[in-house]
């Protein structure tokens, strides 16, 4: 049965956006998928979908430290405080660089956020290392993950 899925992303140099597009394309074969910037998303939007997928790069954030989600995703997370998403399914992805101390630290934060909202995690999160530095390898990795996710949802 076709499900309603929203991919909420934050992106700077574009890698998280591009990864989100690949995921949307593959899930879109069987489901209704919407991609939306975190900056344009309200907490109520989450309630309209069966599945929500969160994606963010990892950055050093003033006052917080290294390995945090991009600022617009952080603001979105903050705006969702107190929301109960029991019964909703979710999963996270992110792009990072393993030469930094906390590789894809933002994904850990997204996982915690989803758990705090009582969402049910579908599969293990996707962490992409240096997306642009090896496009063929990383695009293949994202496709494989998205296909596994598709199989899990279906």
């Amino acid at each position, binding site marked *: 049965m076709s499900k309603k899925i929203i991919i909420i992303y934050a*992106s*700077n*140099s*574009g*890698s998280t*956006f*591009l990864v989100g597009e690949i995921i949307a394309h593959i899930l879109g074969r069987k489901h209704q998928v919407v991609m939306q910037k975190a*900056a344009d998303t309200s907490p109520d939007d989450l309630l309209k979908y069966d599945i929500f997928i969160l994606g963010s*790069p990892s*950055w050093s954030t003033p006052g917080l430290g290294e390995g945090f989600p*991009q*600022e*617009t995703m952080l603001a979105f997370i903050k705006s969702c405080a107190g929301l109960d998403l029991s019964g909703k399914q979710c999963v996270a992805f992110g792009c990072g*660089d393993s*030469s*930094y101390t906390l590789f894809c630290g933002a994904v850990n934060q997204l996982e915690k956020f989803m758990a705090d909202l009582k969402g049910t995690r579908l599969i293990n999160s996707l962490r992409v290392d*240096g997306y*642009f*530095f*090896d*496009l*063929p390898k990383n695009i293949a990795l994202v496709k494989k993950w998205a296909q596994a996710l598709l199989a899990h949802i279906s």
Partner: protein
Amino acid sequence: MTWQDYLTPNKCNWCSGCGNFSIWSAFERAALKAGWNNSNTALVAGIGCHGHIVNFIGLTTFEGLHGRPIPVASGLKMANHKLNVFVFTGDGDCLAEGGNHFIHAARRNQNITVIIHDNAIYGLTAGQASPRSPKGLKTKSTPDGNIEEPIHPLRLALAAGATFLARVYAGNIDECTDILIKANKHDGLAVVQILQPCVTFNKEYSHIFYQENTYALGDDYDATDKVAAFVKTMEWGAKQIPVGILYQVQEPSYESQIPQLQKRALVATAAQKQNISKVLKKYL
């Protein structure tokens, strides 16, 4: 062509998070959509972090001297005006070392697309103030803060006679793709100022700065109104950076006014042999 056809064996050397990644992605998307290939397109870059882009796009490319990609592109266009010719240039490359060429390219209205990777810093040389660095910015060359006012390239180009001016934030890959295609379709000089954060050396113009402070020009904006365009080029600051096509009018391109180019490209015209023995006899 497929996206794989645009890949090269060269590994990217930009810093993680660099705005150049999204410009690269947007250009390749535009190339794929518009059908730019090795038989109809040539790329020229200057010197700077932006210039590395020609190493990562599987099209015919030239890397010129610092500040000189526009003259190289201009020569290319004259030799074969059927080509789509793109210039990749940085704000330092274009507006400092190449400022003279930029002004005259705008005045001349050659049918080329100038893409300015505007990170408001000299990134490749590790962070000195550029002509786009904001007043007060502390850099390695301005440790007490930059005392100079920045140049605004679109205002400069408009004053010099450019016929297509657009601005886009690098991180918006879809918008960037769309603008690049429109710029190339424009018959005349197209200037695209891409707001490209340098995550390593310019902490002021960050990704979040542009995400929070740019706004799209509305449908009611008249891009043919030169005075309105001047007013838009004056805007810069908190929530006040317009993006989109600021100005577009149709004026005869340089190439369209040269009779010798009307039948065929110069490159397709065989050189005519002349007997110069009489001249040689006269002077030797």
